[in-house]
């Protein structure tokens, strides 16, 4: 695997190479080289099986990270090609011409993260949600809890107590309080 990665590195500059297991490597490739590299891997290095395409939201870095996980059925190992794209204007070259299955992933990613893959078939069709008017729901800044609170109404028959706070109020209410407790009391 190592020598193969070195070879690949000389062809397409790899970053963040991590040998996660003997049979699994992750590496980041520049956006403009990615589809090229993936095509090369598929056609010349026997990484013919697309296991998964995925996306991770690194909101703090302002990036989406796409993952193309490829499997080599002959050598039985995997390479995960990571591509960072801008989070503000998320767009990636479509790979639907490489595998018949990839347009579904791209359609899902469009819905779940708002990433655009120009030319990908049925990209804008609903995948799992219908009539969604919030921000794409897999983004880190979509708060499921807040959404649930405002969309559904709690029955209002539940209330919990924090043991430490409860004990303070019961057992030593006049004890001088810390800054945090003062805040909680308000």
């Amino acid at each position: 695997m190592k020598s193969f990665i070195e070879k690949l590195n000389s062809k397409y500059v790899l970053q963040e190479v991590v040998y996660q297991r003997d049979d699994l490597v992750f590496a980041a490739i520049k956006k403009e080289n990615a589809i090229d590299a993936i095509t090369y891997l598929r056609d010349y290095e026997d990484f013919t099986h697309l296991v998964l395409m995925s996306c991770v939201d690194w909101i703090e870095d302002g990036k989406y990270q796409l993952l193309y996980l490829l499997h080599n059925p002959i050598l039985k190992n995997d390479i995960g090609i990571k591509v960072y794209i801008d989070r503000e204007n998320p767009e990636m070259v479509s790979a639907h011409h490489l595998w018949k299955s990839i347009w579904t992933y791209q359609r899902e990613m469009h819905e779940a993260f708002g990433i655009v893959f120009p030319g990908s078939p049925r990209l804008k069709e609903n995948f799992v949600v219908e009539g969604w008017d919030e921000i794409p729901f897999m983004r880190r800044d979509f708060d499921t809890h807040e959404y649930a609170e405002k969309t559904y109404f709690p029955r209002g028959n539940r209330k919990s107590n924090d043991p430490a706070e409860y004990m303070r109020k019961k057992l030593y209410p006049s004890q001088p309080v810390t800054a945090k407790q003062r805040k909680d009391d308000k």
Partner: protein
Amino acid sequence: MINKFLGFTPKKEMLPSQTVTPDTEIDLSSHKYQKIWLGPNHPGVTGNMAVELTVQGNTIMKAQTHVGYLHRGFEKLIERRLFVQGFPTSIRMCVAEPDTNEYFIARATEELSGYADAVPEYANWLRMLSLEMARLQGLLRGVPGQGGTFALGIGVQWGVYLRDLILDRFEELTGARVYHMFIIAGGVRGNLPEGFKARMEDNLRDIDDFIVKIKKLMFHNSIFKTRAKGLAVITPDMVDKFGIVGTNARACGVKRDVRKDNPYLYYDQLDFDPPTATDGDVYARTWIRWQELIQTVDLIRQIMAKMPETGDIRCKMPNVLNWKIPKGETYVRLESGRGEMGMYYVTDGSDKPRRINLRGPSYNHAISVLEHMLIGADVADVHAIMVSLQTCPPEIER
């Protein structure tokens, strides 16, 4: 295809599949076509999913899969939970074999936090046992279920009964029948109850009988044969193009099995050889699954014979409430009854996962493959094709 049985089916060359592709625009205003929806309420036995069919007579011109009826945002919800809290949610992503998802979460977190080798041996054997039991109960539903799609209901009833017996065993091993919540980071949540092996052996003997009976019922059945043979053929060149895995791939001669290719747990210590066939049609797929049924029973026997009598069930790990995992990512996979399943698991140094993404076989099988296979098929065969591809909607939409 029943028409063929009656002797007046159009010749293969005349089937529209030769002329239409999934992207063909169909002019509905021409009144030559009709749109019908199959689902979303349980078409056949594959859960809530809809297929929007455009038909010309009995022949399907175009098919589009619609999912979302079971979407509960599990992947997102797990992102908001501690590592240990993920598994009760994850199992809902796959109703057919929930144990696989428990395994993924456990395995991925162990691997990323450096505890992969610390899991006690006994626990790993119990994990294998529960995974094979999951496969067995899935096949007990799936194999006769294929007959069911051709109105062969009796096999389904036998299968459901036997599956219930396996669920009884699950119940005593894991404390639950369907959502077992048994495999946990670091090990498993219970030891083998006393007398378990004997009771399991009893059940396996019943299943041995069933295997023979179902063979007579389905594979020596002219109706089943006529309808299933030649139906929805997957060719080897499709396998990589569509990302086809598991029995669907093995039925057309592409021998891929994670248990053999990238062995996990102790599968390399078991003696088995995944069956393959060459036809790639519904019949071949069902036939392979029937053989896997035999094999799974055998594997469970092997596991019960080889596993240690007792031992620790979980390794020492950090306090689950305070457990943080350094930044990292991994992909863990296994061979489920439906083929390769896997999970992409990303951590960011906090006490919750950054992202999890399940790779369910149905993601491809029930969308791109199904849409492709249905073109040119007969409306009456839609269920059969769906079931033969082992469609499972919850793992598509998660």
